[in-house]
């Protein structure tokens, strides 16, 4: 979220009154090392190790030594229709969650930016999903979707909209039902980020535009949106990446079922690695996901730089 303005700030600082005086070079290393060592040991290291594993036949609990097998895992992946199906579902899920999440959060942020009664309540509620463990969010929505004891079907019956259905185990309804939960769970971060952006838009400009007779849609397009764009871009890119990586929600809601209709790539890789013990193959899946995410991250960074040039 801070990414958008981070760069500008850097430029300003360095071109300003000169670098602020800080600790000496050695002192700086001393301060940085405690954080750097665990990071190198437990995140950069494993990441590189994981990439290496993708080129081996590593399996869990095997006695024979692990061998290099080149790109065999990747060529297997290429022909693994189940994986591509899972990948397709993952993209559907990520887009299906990210887009409504953004639109709904933008709407809510715009409302919260207005001087409305009950705003405090909405602000507090908008944060709640953020504080909940993902597992609890999953459990909660299972209760809502429950075919007999769930409130959704009961409400539908009350409204005379039929008998309702078993949302999470229907082939056609499982993915949309899960996507709704994803949208719900991710609303807070997006709303908070967008609200921050809104409060940062110059109020005078808004008033000037209103005096000039610009309607609210026009004011949104010409004043609000340009100021909001960098943050909107940053949070959407992050949301997309987070959603591609999500696991717990769907694990609790459907565990990938029915018939693999909600088997996100993460669930697929998890099963491959920790149910079937195919470490090398699962690592290769991870690599493919990294590649895809990197492309999006690159697009996002390019967009961010361009956004910075506009401003």
């Amino acid at each position, binding site marked *: *979220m*801070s*990414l958008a303005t981070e760069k500008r700030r850097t430029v300003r600082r360095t071109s300003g009154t000169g*670098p*602020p005086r800080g*600790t000496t070079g050695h002192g*700086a290393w001393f*301060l*940085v090392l*405690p*954080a750097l060592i*665990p*990071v190198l040991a437990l*995140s950069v*290291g*494993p*990441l590189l*190790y994981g*990439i290496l594993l993708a080129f081996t036949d590593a399996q869990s609990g095997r006695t024979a030594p692990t061998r290099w097998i080149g790109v065999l895992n990747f060529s297997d992946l290429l022909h693994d229709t189940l994986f591509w199906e899972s990948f397709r579902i993952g993209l559907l899920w990520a887009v299906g969650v990210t887009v409504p999440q953004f639109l709904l959060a933008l709407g809510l942020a715009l*409302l919260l930016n*207005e001087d409305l*009664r*009950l*705003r405090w*309540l*909405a602000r*507090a*509620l908008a944060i*709640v999903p*953020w504080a909940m*463990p*993902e*597992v*609890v969010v999953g*459990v*909660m929505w*299972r*209760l*809502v979707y429950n075919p*007999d*004891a769930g409130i959704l079907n009961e409400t539908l*019956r009350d409204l005379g909209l039929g008998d309702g259905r078993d949302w999470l185990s229907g082939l056609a309804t499982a993915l949309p039902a899960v996507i709704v939960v994803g949208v*719900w769970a991710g609303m807070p971060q997006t709303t*908070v980020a967008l609200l921050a*952006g809104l409060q*940062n838009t110059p109020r005078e400009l808004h008033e000037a535009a209103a005096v000039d007779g610009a309607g*609210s849609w026009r004011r949104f397009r010409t004043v609000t949106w340009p100021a909001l764009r960098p*943050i909107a871009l940053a949070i959407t890119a992050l949301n997309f990446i987070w959603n*591609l*990586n999500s*696991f*717990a929600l769907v694990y*609790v809601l459907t565990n990938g079922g029915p018939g693999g209709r909600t088997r996100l*790539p*993460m669930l697929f*890789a998890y099963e491959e690695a920790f149910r079937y013990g195919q470490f090398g193959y699962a*690592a290769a899946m*991870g690599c493919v*996901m990294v590649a895809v995410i990197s492309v999006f*991250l690159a697009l996002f960074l390019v967009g961010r730089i361009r956004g910075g040039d506009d401003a």
Partner: protein
Amino acid sequence: MRTRPAARAGRAAQYTALLGYLVFLAFPFLWLLSVAFKPARELGSLHPTWIPEHPTLANFRQAFDEQPLLHAAFNSLIAAVGAAVIAVALATPMAYVMARRRTRLARAASGWVVVSQAFPFVLVIIPLFLVLKNLRLIDSVPGLVMVYVVWALPFALWMLVGYVRAVPVELEEAAAIDGAGRLRTLVSVTAPLLAPGIVATGLFAFVTAWNEFFFALVLLKTPEKQTLPVVLTHFIGTEGVADLGPLAAAAFLATLPSLVVFAIVQRRITGGMLAGAVKS
């Protein structure tokens, strides 16, 4: 759903939309509460009601009987407190350097903060699993704490850098002119001003670790060592059939600590993120 705010009829539409949001955000949680306090007979009824007719605590009792909830809560507490304290202790000095100095290192660190958000956990978890297994730290809460520390560091750094920037350099310079040494300045000028930010960051790290599921699922196998989110999933049978009442009760209890902490630091957390997101 939100409509464009038409200038005049605006207010009514705005309130309708706000009401829609309130319902959408609140109803799942209210339903969880409702189920948690319902007796088994009402849960089996074909026409569930919002308000339990005969509210009961039986579900809570049953939840504690069925699963080692207290033990799991204790494990979660150790993991979350450990992760929060260590992550903040490690991140604060680094954040200070990143905020105050524009070195290549600081820039690389900021880059890593961004990239770490994109880590697919699959790629990291398999090697981590193997490494921790060799260190005999698999299936142990300390091993999980190590993972959580690294996992919480990027966000902790991000928030702390924002808080450090909010402490004016001029104050430190003034102290230096008054003859305070480097360490003295840090301890008696910077640290007190930074304290609320450090607490907020720590609490945020606590909540993320308390809520975390994936690493805990993979790394902890013995039931006595598992954390709350993992134990919660045991309420759901292999066939996907769950005993709804106890499940809801346990889920509600597991959420309480994060809700309380979040309520305390909510303002600060959003403030901290804004510190990074908004031009000062």
